[in-house]
């Protein structure tokens, strides 16, 4: 794979932008949705919105695994965290996600034992070093992370460490896209599909977008020229009425995905319904550990006995942001009550959450305010 020099990138970008201007119909408002937090950030970082014609609107969808993890999951994690003999192991992003009453970071300050990991495999060492504690790993994430966590479950199973458990709330991307297309509100004219999720699952799980819904979709990388070439692909599909799953990230995404990862995921998990923050229960959109690995499912082995807090309305509109129905800056709490220092909802907490990205990069109407 050739790496482009800066000059080559600039030239390629110019050519792609010229092609975009050839392909779109002036005055026609198009909304392309990306469903990957890394794309949300990359689009801001690269200044994509400033170079596109204003009628092509890029909208963020439910692409951040931290953001779509619902409040009940956080409350369960907090309930386990309060138990004396528990160490919670988690990715760093989860620390500040608010539960009904407080966040893991606040629980940590009050004495709960919370350990931030960089790689899920670290929990094996944590388990060995703390034999009298239960290590509970907060197993969230889309397919990219699911593969790594499946490997971790297998590693735990093959080891002699028996004090490690998982609180599972994985989410699958393809079923969520169908729900977005079925909703009565909102307009989606194409999908910029997630790069890293697609490394695992390949092109096939998205096939129904082209076949059943005739909507253009394209798997894209994260550099400016890669995102622009993805947008060209979507416009070409619309122009020719020939719908397919485009793949502009063939350097790492194979049509069949990663068969080793897929086989491992299938061995460890089974598909189930799951609740997405602000979107309700989406059928067949989650995973749970299947036998014999369900012996590590903490909810099966050590179910919570105390009731969870009753959800309080906060005015948070994360749900509508995640479905692309409003922009983050259209939420009345944005930038006033809800900031990255004091997040009300999950979209503001995660580095790749739509609201956090908008707050960091685009507070002045999507970063368009440079004169």
């Amino acid at each position, binding site marked *: 794979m050739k790496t482009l020099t800066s*000059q080559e990138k600039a030239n390629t970008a110019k050519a792609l932008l010229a092609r975009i201007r050839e392909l779109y119909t002036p005055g026609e408002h198009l909304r392309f949705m990306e469903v990957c937090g890394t794309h949300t950030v990359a689009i801001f970082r690269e200044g994509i919105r400033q*170079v596109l014609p204003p009628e092509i609107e890029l909208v963020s969808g439910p692409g951040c695994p931290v953001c779509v993890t619902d409040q009940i999951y956080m409350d369960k994690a907090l309930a386990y965290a309060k138990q004396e003999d528990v160490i919670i192991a988690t990715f760093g992003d989860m620390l500040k996600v608010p539960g009904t009453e407080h966040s893991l970071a606040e629980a940590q300050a009050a004495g709960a034992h919370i350990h931030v990991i960089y790689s899920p495999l670290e929990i094996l060492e944590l388990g060995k070093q703390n034999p009298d504690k239960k290590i509970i790993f907060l197993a969230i994430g889309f397919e990219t992370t699911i593969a790594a966590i499946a490997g971790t479950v297998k590693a735990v199973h093959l080891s002699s460490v028996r004090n490690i458990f998982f609180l599972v709330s994985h989410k699958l991307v393809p079923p969520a896209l169908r729900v977005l297309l079925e909703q009565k509100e909102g307009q989606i004219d194409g999908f910029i599909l997630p790069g890293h999720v697609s490394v695992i699952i390949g092109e096939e799980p998205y096939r129904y977008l082209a076949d059943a819904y005739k909507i253009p979709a394209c798997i894209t990388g994260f550099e400016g020229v890669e995102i*622009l070439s993805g947008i060209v692909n979507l416009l070409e599909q619309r122009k020719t009425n020939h719908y397919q799953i485009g793949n502009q990230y063939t350097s790492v995404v194979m049509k069949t995905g990663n068969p080793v990862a897929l086989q491992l995921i299938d061995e460890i998990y089974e598909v189930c319904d799951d609740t997405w923050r602000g979107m309700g229960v989406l059928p067949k959109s989650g995973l749970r550990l299947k036998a014999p690995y369900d012996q590590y499912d903490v909810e099966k082995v050590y179910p919570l006995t105390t009731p969870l807090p009753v959800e309080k309305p906060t005015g948070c509109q994360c749900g509508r942001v995640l479905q692309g129905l409003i922009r983050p800056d259209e939420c009345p709490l944005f930038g006033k009550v809800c900031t990255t220092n004091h997040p009300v909802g999950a979209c503001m907490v995660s580095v790749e959450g739509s609201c956090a990205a908008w707050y960091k990069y685009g*507070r002045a109407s999507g970063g368009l305010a440079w004169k």
Partner: protein
Amino acid sequence: MSEKVKLVHGNGGRFSHELLETYILPHFKNEWLGVLHDGAQFPVQAGRMAFTTDSYVVTPYEFPGGNIGKLAICGTVNDLAMNGAIPQYISCALILEEGFELKQLEAILSTMEAMAAEAQVQIVTGDTKVVEKGSIDGIFINTAGIGMIPDTVDSHPKNIKPGMKVIVTGTLGDHAIAVMGTRYGLSLAASIQTDCAPLNGMIQAVLEKVGKKVAVLRDPTRGGLGTTLCELAQQSQTGILIEEEQIPVTAEVKSVCSILGYDAIYLANEGKAILIVEADVEEEVLSILHTFKYGKAATTIGTVISQNKGKVGLRTTIGGIRIIEPLGEDQVPRIC
């Protein structure tokens, strides 16, 4: 002597003296500290003096290419240099955790001696305290420093004017990635090392040549280039436009950033400076910087403009302009 620091080493008595004589004084040999009075006494000139202080609490205290002692000397020397001063005298306060290995202390002090020699500064006064095990992580250091500012120099954000050029003295993010690699146990290329270095020699050479045509100097430490430029834009009420393709980042640091989701413009640097200079001396300043080992990769990254007062814009490779804001939450490795 024991192999580890004990509480008694901090009580001011015989054991404190033993620690001082055996470990500290051999590395900081000069007429002022040698007196072992409550402070250093020395004559001063008339003029403007710069005075700075910093505390160093980095974990881990050893990382590729350096340790906390290197940071403690270079950080304070560089802050003086950013004021246009010629660094002269440094104070050094050590806070040691009970149980800290004395051979670790030896290595840190030895590094401080080497850095002080390179920067041509003297450590003339200091203090040592020992705290109970668990209170701190190994060692904390505070250094303060003074130096005189020549009349031909004036480094201050009020001097920044539209049309001036923004120069950075080398590659960004090296220090932060080296420390992060050790902290997270990542196996990074051996070439990823801290850039921690004393810049005063190089900066002095530039200031001696072009004097007040350097409007301001600042080192992009915590918060990185992005945050530092935001501060300068705000303080001067000018706009600053930088070009993404001009920002120097090594291929290794770029790779790590791309995997972990970090933005190099927010990563800390400990051996780099930003110079905002009048356009007519841009080439001369760059050629002086290029003659120093710490300035070989110096390059112009942007321009000061009159519009967008108080804002910093970054023109990306594809031609969009993204507004840069100061660093908010610390960057954490992304989940996926």
